[in-house]
């Protein structure tokens, strides 16, 4: 029985595990080497794998992304860290304009097997620009995979899968739960599948769909609702592009009701894509309109007012009640 580890330790374990197995994996980013990453996700890697496989880069995200495209096209597997979601925007040109389409535009001659790891989300009292949830920006881009774990075990298995995936993966780490909860994780080297949802709780009355740190509040709401006799099915979407709609539709066909929970602002978010697909393909099963519990369509507040923005367990329970009471 291995020790229980936190999510950030699971990320570290997956990196170490895969770097031992696959010499082409190279970790790069700001402060990832000597410092072991601002969240310590890469701690110990420089010592074990040396300066040729763990690169402390100059402070320039555009460069990190563009450099990774070049390395990946050469057959390396760059695993780049962007320190915070708020600093990922300079990478967009390379991720959208190049990484996502290199395979396509060369009709398979070149490809881009790279991973961009980026902590995201609020709730840790960080200064401005450190707490946003902008996963939709990437989920919208054909050719990119967007993967978000919500537990140490899934972080380990999914990051291995991301590193073994032949295409670019944006691996978003919900930092609010980085150290919140420890779970036993075995270093088995076994990847978990991408492109599929994970059902965390089986239930028959209503389907709760979420991802990332909001899984915590969603499960809490499901627990409290269970005490009231409401049986929630909880689905962790995990891969936000491409989305496994089949799992969600099958669940909604069973329950007839759905609440989507995410921290990102409401409009144009991934929740909207899921709701639209339910409207297209699951309409006949619906007993009530699909509800969304989300952040507001506003700038992420500085931390003092952050809790007004972040969806909480009470919000989820209210949405579930409204959905259940819909005639």
């Amino acid at each position, binding site marked *: 029985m291995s020790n229980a580890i936190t999510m950030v330790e699971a990320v570290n374990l997956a990196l170490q595990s895969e770097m031992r197995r696959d010499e082409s994996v190279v970790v790069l980013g*700001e402060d990832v080497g000597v*410092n072991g990453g601002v969240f310590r996700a890469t701690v110990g890697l420089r010592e074990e794998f040396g300066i040729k496989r763990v690169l402390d880069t100059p*402070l320039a995200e555009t460069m990190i992304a563009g450099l990774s495209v070049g390395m990946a096209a050469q057959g390396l597997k760059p695993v780049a860290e962007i320190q915070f979601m708020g600093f990922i925007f300079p990478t967009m040109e390379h991720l959208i304009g190049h990484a996502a389409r290199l395979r396509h535009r060369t009709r398979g001659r070149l490809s881009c097997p790279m991973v961009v790891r980026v902590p995201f989300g609020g709730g840790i*009292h960080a*200064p401005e*620009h450190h707490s946003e949830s902008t996963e939709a920006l990437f989920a919208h881009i054909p050719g990119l995979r967007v993967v978000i774990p919500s537990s140490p075990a899934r972080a380990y298995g999914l990051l291995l899968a991301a590193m073994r995936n032949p295409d670019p993966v944006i691996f978003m780490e919900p930092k609010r739960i980085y150290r919140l909860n420890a779970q036993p994780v075995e270093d088995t080297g076994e990847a978990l599948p991408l492109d599929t949802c994970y059902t965390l709780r089986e239930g028959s009355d209503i389907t709760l769909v979420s991802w990332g740190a909001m899984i915590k509040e969603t499960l809490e709401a499901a627990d409290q609702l269970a005490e009231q006799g409401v049986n929630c099915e909880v689905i962790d979407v995990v891969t936000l592009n491409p989305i496994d709609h089949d799992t969600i539709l099958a669940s909604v066909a069973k329950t007839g009701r759905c609440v989507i929970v995410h921290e990102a602002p409401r409009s144009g978010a991934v929740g909207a894509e899921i709701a639209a697909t339910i409207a297209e393909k699951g309409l006949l099963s619906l007993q009530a309109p699909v509800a969304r519990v989300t952040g507001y369509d*506003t700038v992420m507040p500085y931390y*003092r*007012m952050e809790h*007004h923005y972040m969806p909480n367990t009470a919000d989820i329970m209210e949405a579930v009640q409204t959905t259940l009471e819909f005639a």
Partner: protein
Amino acid sequence: METVYQAQIHYRSYLSEEGHALTELPAWAQSPDTLVRYYRNMVLARQLDNKIIALQRTGQMGTYASLLGSEAIDAVIGDLMLDDDVLVPYYRNHALQMLRGLALSDILSYWGGDERGNSSVKMAQDFPNAVPIATQALHATGVATAFKIRGEKRVAVTICGDGATSKGDFLEALNVAGAWQLPVVFVVNNNQWAISVPRSIQCGAQTLAQKAIGAGIRGEQVDGNDVIAMHEAFEEALKHAREGKGATLIEAMSYRLSDHTTADDATRYRANEELKAAWEKEPVKRLQTFLHQQGWWNEVQEQAWQNEVNQIIQAGVDEYLAMPQQPVEDLIDYLYAELPKALQEQRQRLIRNAQPGGNRHE
């Protein structure tokens, strides 16, 4: 082969590490007024920094980026900029913002996670802190372009760290400033560390000032722990810009005597000896020594000023701690000039949740 271009980067300094004059001082530095003012402001800045860290360590402040080691740079820039000029700062310029008129309680509010810290009318047209690295350099060129288009004798001043000079934004800003001869001064607070990455592996060039050469603007290196050198360099740059002669890049050599932020631990990546050596060169002590030597400052004045500084800071802290919570609708009301109809429902929900009976009522 003929040489088509040649350039040099000069290093400016007046005070030795021990606080002695290395060369003949400029006229203004031969009388106490300005230097004593600089000194007092630097002491205030340092004490403020200590206090904010203490507040953070006791849970009364958010993650905070210390200004320790940049007191001289901020003191000079804050003093020489005109009210009409525009400051486009990064996140380590709160001493400079204080000198530009911002109340301590506003500075504390910002770091305490409250947007109202950016809202003071005292900031006039100054930008709020740029947290995304080097982005402010481009904004400063935009401000300078506006000045130039309107024919105003105003200058945009922007500061960044050494790490920021690696970003495209910074180099693009230098380039456009050169191409259009913009009234802007770029100051790099080269404190030798970008979180854990030392200057030596940040950039292969011997100086960061030489990046000016590629952009066709003035560039020089200056001892950023030496207020006199800093004053001379910055005043020249301001004058140059104000006279329509274009931009300057000043690389101010300093040292980050603190951690990157209160969430960082520099002992993980930085040798203690290096930090100790840096403390030998630090700007406040250096100027104090010089003022003592000149007979412009003494222990009695020091004690009196320390007491006054503590009172000033405590008053600011008290004001900060007594500030009522901002109304929750502020989270949405400032998003657009006019609240779009589509946001009304969300605004109502925000308010409802914060009210008695709501799930976020406090």
